[in-house]
């Protein structure tokens, strides 16, 4: 307490600093951020998985050829492959050998070797141009033109299923994300209310000294936004570490095929501290404004 030097004086914060070190609030917001980031990573990974699967399926079609009475199965398959190869958008059409066709149905019919005479349908595998794939109808028309009895499976049924599943995952992810954001907002609103009640006398003096409601609310807004940003940093950091561990542990055939997390995905958690701060700021401001108007 030596000589006071006004030149060196810096204004102290209007609200007691100690209030800002609320460990439990930081922990709760950090946990919520962590969960939100994990949700985000899961949605990104599910999306990538779905895109990988549909990507494979769009590049391929399978044609089942049923030989007519006057034709051998192999002959029909060969004719079908020839007809399909000429369709624009088809890169390659290949008749599968009898053995392959038999192998495919073996699980259902058992060893078909002694069913030599059974007219087993032959399969033609078609590789499509990924840029301009031939449509199922185009393939169908080409086969019909050759008078072939065949069924085109362009995998569109599967793809729709996968797309629907991926869409559902996105919606659920979005809903969980929104729920977590609302929970974070509610926690901050709760903390703001407690903070205002605890500092009622400070709020009153500021108010009576001519501070505008928005100014007082701003003090709480900044305080909680900062706190949430710090918490968000912890939460997002923990989620990124978790994602990195999954990426490592996943390796070639671990989790990766199911939930393929890419290193780049880890960047998606970067805006989390900002998002947490924004949610906290809005929540604290609205709560504080309403309470100050009530109090005064």
């Amino acid at each position, binding site marked *: 307490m030596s000589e*006071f030097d006004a030149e060196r004086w810096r204004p102290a914060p209007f609200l007691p600093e100690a209030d800002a070190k609320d460990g439990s609030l930081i922990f709760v917001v950090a946990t919520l951020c962590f969960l939100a980031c994990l949700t985000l990573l899961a949605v990104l990974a599910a999306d990538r998985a779905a895109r990988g699967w549909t990507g494979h399926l769009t590049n391929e079609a399978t044609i089942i050829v049923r030989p007519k009475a006057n034709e051998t199965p192999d002959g029909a398959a060969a004719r079908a492959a020839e007809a399909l190869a000429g369709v624009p958008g088809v890169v390659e059409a290949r008749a599968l050998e009898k053995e392959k066709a038999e192998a495919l149905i073996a699980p259902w019919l058992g060893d078909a070797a002694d069913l030599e005479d059974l007219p087993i349908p032959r399969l033609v595998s078609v590789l499509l141009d990924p840029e301009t794939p031939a449509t199922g109808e185009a393939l169908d028309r080409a086969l019909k033109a050759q008078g072939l009895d065949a069924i085109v499976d362009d995998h569109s049924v599967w793809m729709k299923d996968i797309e629907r599943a991926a869409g559902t995952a996105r919606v659920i992810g979005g809903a969980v994300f929104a729920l977590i954001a609302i929970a974070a907002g509610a926690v901050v609103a709760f903390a703001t209310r407690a903070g205002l009640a605890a500092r009622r006398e400070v709020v009153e003096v500021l108010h009576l000294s001519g501070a505008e409601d928005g100014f007082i609310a701003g003090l709480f807004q900044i305080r909680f936004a900062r706190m949430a940003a710090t918490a968000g940093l912890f939460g997002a950091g923990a989620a990124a570490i978790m994602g990195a561990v999954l990426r490592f542990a996943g390796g070639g055939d671990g989790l990766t095929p199911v939930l393929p997390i890419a290193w780049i995905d880890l960047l998606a958690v970067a805006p989390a501290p900002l998002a947490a701060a924004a949610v906290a700021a809005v929540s604290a401001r609205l709560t504080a404004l309403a309470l100050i108007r009530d109090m005064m």
Partner: protein
Amino acid sequence: MSRNTHAAGAFDADPAVVRFDDVSMRYGRAPETLKDLTFSLAPGSFHFVTGASGAGKTSLLKLIFLAARPSKGLLHLFGQDVSAIAPREQPFLRRRIGVVYQEFKLLEHLSAFDNTALPLRIAGRKPESYRQDVAELLAWVGLRSRMHAMPATLAGGEKQRLAIARAVVNRPDILLADEPTGNVDHEMGLRILRLFVELNRLGTTILIATHDQDLVAASGMPVLHLDEGRLTQLGAGGEA
């Protein structure tokens, strides 16, 4: 002086800084605490409000610093009807009113210097523009060696003078002081009175609520006396 001239000039329809017209006030559903008050305070005037404990002195001041509303009658502040002032305008009106609260209302987490600077910061002034003035004001109220001190470490009389410094630091047009000598000995009471007289000479309108008859006598200033919420004596300077 210039600020009061300005205040009067801006609302020259009504030169009074404060005007009560048949004002009553009650807390919630309780009976009226203040009943049919009519008086006005001219710019640059100096008045005391006296009365027994519970007579309504603090309540009267609350009406003026906009912490309470009349339940009846008309109250004008700086020529404006307070019931017609928009909420967003009120903070700016409050900045023209300095208040020494009966219970001080110092902020415990702020030093004496920071407490004093509070109204200036709220008014949006830059620290460079007032640091030196705040230091001088604190020296003037005898707290030169206590500028760093936290309120909890101050003696009653020191807190009182700190509260006074905060009330006057923004050069208010009107200063309201509630029992400003309640916690100090006679000597200190007279020092505080000299401080108010000095401020009044600089043009500030002053209204002091007190029990302290010695203080009133020593000042020779006019008195508004409250008896159970009614005004029973009007000072010569505050003609109704």
